[in-house]
């Protein structure tokens, strides 16, 4: 069971939302902006983490479900919720595209917001992994937002946009604290008519840290993630996979704020970083998988699994620590 929102929340649609924890714990305590959408309202239970109560959230019932196979050994349950993929600094960045591609099992409707690379890059990488993105796009299973192209259209395009479809990166030229247009795209693509044919929707966000560099305020980012979660996880019973960059000695406070908040809310965290001992040809890094069991049942510890990985041309092999090819 996943308690939908932390803390007590009042109205939702039309008037903004206040989520606060009466016992003043570390939960969110602020106003969400009033975006005029009508979600099914629900009465909130109290914060599961600090009060230990698990009230179901009103009309919307959320359940965990068995997820698809992850690219790692060991059984992994993919709950219906938010997964954060954090890429630390390493010589060979763990191919988060791999993780994001494989996180969308066959038969799911996917909305891929790719801000950092072009479509051809993902399509070629996915082809090596056995996934055909072009075909998926043609049959309507995949909605791909190419951030670079949208940005160019916004910046250099003339004023001939259709009024019904504003550019998703409108926050660049308008106010930087409003990622509403981006959320509109996500909402329209995932809850479009005919998407009932596909199984639960998946939202993939490649690189949230880029949005900070483009001028979005961290609070706006967190609001956007919050709305995405509410839409995809709670209403449409899908999954959200978000990639962020982080590092231990990072001086980017805004980024750290977003990463911390994201990790706090995620049900599953995949943390990819380089080895602490330096560069190695056979082990490119380690992947820490944290399953936030503590979100679901208070008093339980989070499950942490540690694997090391080596990236090859068409595959990534995961193995337990100490079992790399360099040692065996």
């Amino acid at each position, binding site marked *: 069971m996943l308690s939908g929102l932390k803390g007590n929340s009042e109205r939702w649609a039309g008037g903004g939302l206040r989520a606060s924890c009466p016992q003043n714990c570390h939960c969110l305590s602020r106003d969400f902006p009033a975006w005029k959408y009508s979600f099914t309202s629900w009465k909130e239970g109290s914060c599961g983490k600090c009060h230990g109560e698990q009230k179901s959230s009103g009309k919307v019932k959320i359940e965990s479900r068995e997820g698809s196979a992850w690219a790692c050994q060991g059984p992994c349950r993919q709950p219906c919720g938010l997964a954060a993929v954090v890429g630390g600094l390493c010589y*060979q960045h763990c191919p988060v595209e791999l993780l994001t591609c494989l996180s969308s099992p066959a038969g799911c409707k996917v909305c891929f917001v790719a801000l950092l690379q072009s479509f051809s890059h993902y399509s070629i990488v996915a082809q090596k992994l056995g996934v055909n993105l072009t075909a998926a796009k043609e049959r309507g299973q995949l909605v791909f937002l190419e951030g670079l192209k949208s940005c160019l259209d916004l910046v250099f395009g003339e004023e001939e946009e259709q009024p019904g479809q504003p550019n998703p990166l409108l926050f660049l030229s308008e106010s930087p604290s409003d990622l509403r247009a981006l959320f509109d795209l996500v909402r329209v693509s995932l809850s479009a008519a005919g998407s009932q044919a596909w199984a639960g929707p998946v939202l993939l966000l490649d690189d949230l840290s880029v949005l900070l560099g483009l001028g979005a305020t961290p609070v706006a980012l967190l609001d956007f993630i919050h709305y995405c979660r509410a839409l995809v996880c709670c209403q449409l019973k899908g999954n959200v996979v978000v990639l962020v*960059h982080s590092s231990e000695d990072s001086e980017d406070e805004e980024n750290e704020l977003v990463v911390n908040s994201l990790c706090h809310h995620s049900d599953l965290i995949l943390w990819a970083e380089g080895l602490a001992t330096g560069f190695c040809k056979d082990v490119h890094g380690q992947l820490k998988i944290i399953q936030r069991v503590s979100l679901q049942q208070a008093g339980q510890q989070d499950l942490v699994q540690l694997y090391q990985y080596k990236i090859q041309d068409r595959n990534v092999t995961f193995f337990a620590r100490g079992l790399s090819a360099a040692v065996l």
Partner: protein
Amino acid sequence: MAAAGGARGRTSFQRRAGAGARPAALPGTRPALRHGQLLLSSGLPSLDCVLGGGVAVGTLLLIEEDKYGLYSNLLFKYFLAEGIVCGHDLFVASAKEHPDNILKELPAPLLDDTCGKELGDEAAAVKSEDVQDSMKIAWRYQNLPKMEASPTPYTKFGHYYDISKKMSPELIQSIKWHSFYLHEEPSSPPKMKTCNMNGAYVRLLQSLQRIISQGGFDGSDPQKKQKNVLRIGIQGLGSPLWGDDICCSDTPEDVHSLTKFLYVLRGLLRKSLSACIITVPAHLIQNKAIMERVTNLSDMVVGLESFIGSERETNPLYKDYHGLVHVHQIPRLNSLICDVSDTKDLAFRLKRKLFTIERLHLPPDLSDTVSRASKQELAGSAKLLSSGCAAMAIGKRHLDF
């Protein structure tokens, strides 16, 4: 491949002529082995090896300038000179020097025979020593391959340049080049959305987009049969001359201009046949968060650290070199894996005519006390020197019993 056998005689393996339409090769490019992207030479063959074969078309190479900008300027000029020699179009943007002056001071290319002679001299000298002295003590190591100081490119891809000579004006006039000198640009209202970006950056982007679309580099002109590559060079981006104050204070007013510029530039590069080199005075930017974001938004980031004026200039460990090279990022294009070279410790040196990037290796220890302890002392004193305790370091060098 038939080409390899062709030099010495036809092999039985012949490529079928006309098997699939081969696209007309762009001048000065070669496809990468791993991911099939077109690669350009950066002008410095040793840098090409470090970057995994070269600069891929559609990517951005960011150079973090050294303290006085001397060596990063050299790299910038090498990139442009390579463009001229290969016949590419150039776009040079600067707020410091007029692009005409930059182009006048490009190094002259070394012709094949002279260049071969320069490098061949050294190689021949080494080889003759080899033949004469076979190893007497460490004879087990006789047949091991010699360690290559600078990574040798296995195909003839880049060119070498002579810094002491200037490129001839005829060669420069043979290609088409565009310039953007900030202080001579007319300040007309921009036709694009500014997105709260710095005015100078907006004008630069506008100019760049105009050149790309007019020159047909983004494939918008299907009539154009002969495609060419556009090499873009932007000097000193982020410095106060561009109107950006990220180098001036810890809390600049406009933190996002540079990153927005880089994002739009990335979009422009990805959809056109171009490659870009940018030098950024990273040592002046006090807000390190900006440099982290800039690094994430660029494809290749190479930082130069010169020894001029630092304690390392007199350090005997570094006596053969003029500075260190830090590779902060290498792109993963169209594949899961990137071509990371094995050597992480790289240094550069400026010889009389050539600039090379080499693997950093310690000089041979020829002091009186040839023992392990002396090397450790040197290394220890190097660490202390770099952390600023010079007096203690000197004391440690000579152990008096």
